[in-house]
């Protein structure tokens, strides 16, 4: 597991910030009355598309795959969560950004845990 402060802090901030941006933008797009499933699918796709340039750009500072994959996942999850919420209830821009940031922090934690799970099991998938 990554323990260097620069990278851990970078991973936290990157995911929270990209999640907040995705949440902010999609809370402007989706409102009550949207079919929830349609809103979630659009949110997932748009979230990933919004996150894509940040995934590439931030990787130059914080590592390639270690940045791209969580940030793209954050885009997807934040997009899905915010559009689901916004399709059911009026969601403010700040509320969308907050929900996106929380999604990003959740993805950060999930990817660290997933990485810790996967790494020791490499051998059995390659023999």
């Amino acid at each position: 597991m990554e323990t260097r402060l620069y990278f851990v802090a970078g991973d936290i901030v990157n995911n929270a910030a990209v999640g907040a941006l995705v949440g902010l933008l999609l809370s402007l797009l989706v409102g009550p009355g949207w079919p929830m499933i349609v809103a979630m699918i659009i949110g997932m796709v748009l979230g990933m598309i919004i996150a894509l340039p940040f995934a590439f750009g931030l990787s130059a500072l914080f590592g390639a795959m270690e940045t791209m994959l969580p940030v793209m996942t954050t885009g997807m999850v934040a997009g899905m969560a915010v559009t689901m919420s916004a399709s059911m209830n009026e969601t403010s821009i700040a509320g969308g950004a907050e929900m996106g940031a929380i999604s990003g922090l959740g993805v950060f934690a999930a990817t660290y845990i997933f990485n810790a799970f996967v790494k020791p099991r490499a051998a059995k998938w390659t023999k």
Partner: protein
Amino acid sequence: MDEVTRRKWDRAAANFELMAGYGPEKRWEPYKRELFSNMGDGEILFLALGTGLDLPVFPEGKSITAIDISQKMIDEAAPRVDAYNGNIRTQQADVHEMPFEDNQFDQVFTSCTFCSVPNPVQGLEAIKRVLKPGGDLFMFEHTGSRFFPFRQMMNLMTVVTKRLGPDMNRTTVENVVAAGYDLKKVTHVYMDVVKTIHAIPV
């Protein structure tokens, strides 16, 4: 020589380190240093040289032939080649048709190479030809993932990245086996995506 690939990396050479020079290298440095510590005293082939980002973590005093398909990459690498405390000979070459004799090298090292080789199994077979029987192939590579949603994301990203540089969804471990190597050890650096591979020709 594959001219499409050569031109792609010639175009990428001037700005290559903007994307790859800091974050990825810092993040992967401990793992690369450990991999390259396996360099022995025999003749070593290293590919692809790129702008020489890996050279500062090479052990000193080795005899290395370093190739890249892009002469512009090799030119960018010149200061790091000059700074290396050992013997590095650089040469522009395509991995598919390397101008080396059979069984010439004791060890071959690759670093983020087989994300970009157009025909990876053919390239790995070409390495097998120049590697002495019982010689070592050590690789530091990123690959695709077997897991949702990363697999799908990397397929999506590859649509963009393959025009400018590497593919993100290669199956390099499987390619190594398909090219006729015996896997000795695969170590995952990040998820199942970034890994080191040690293999020997069967």
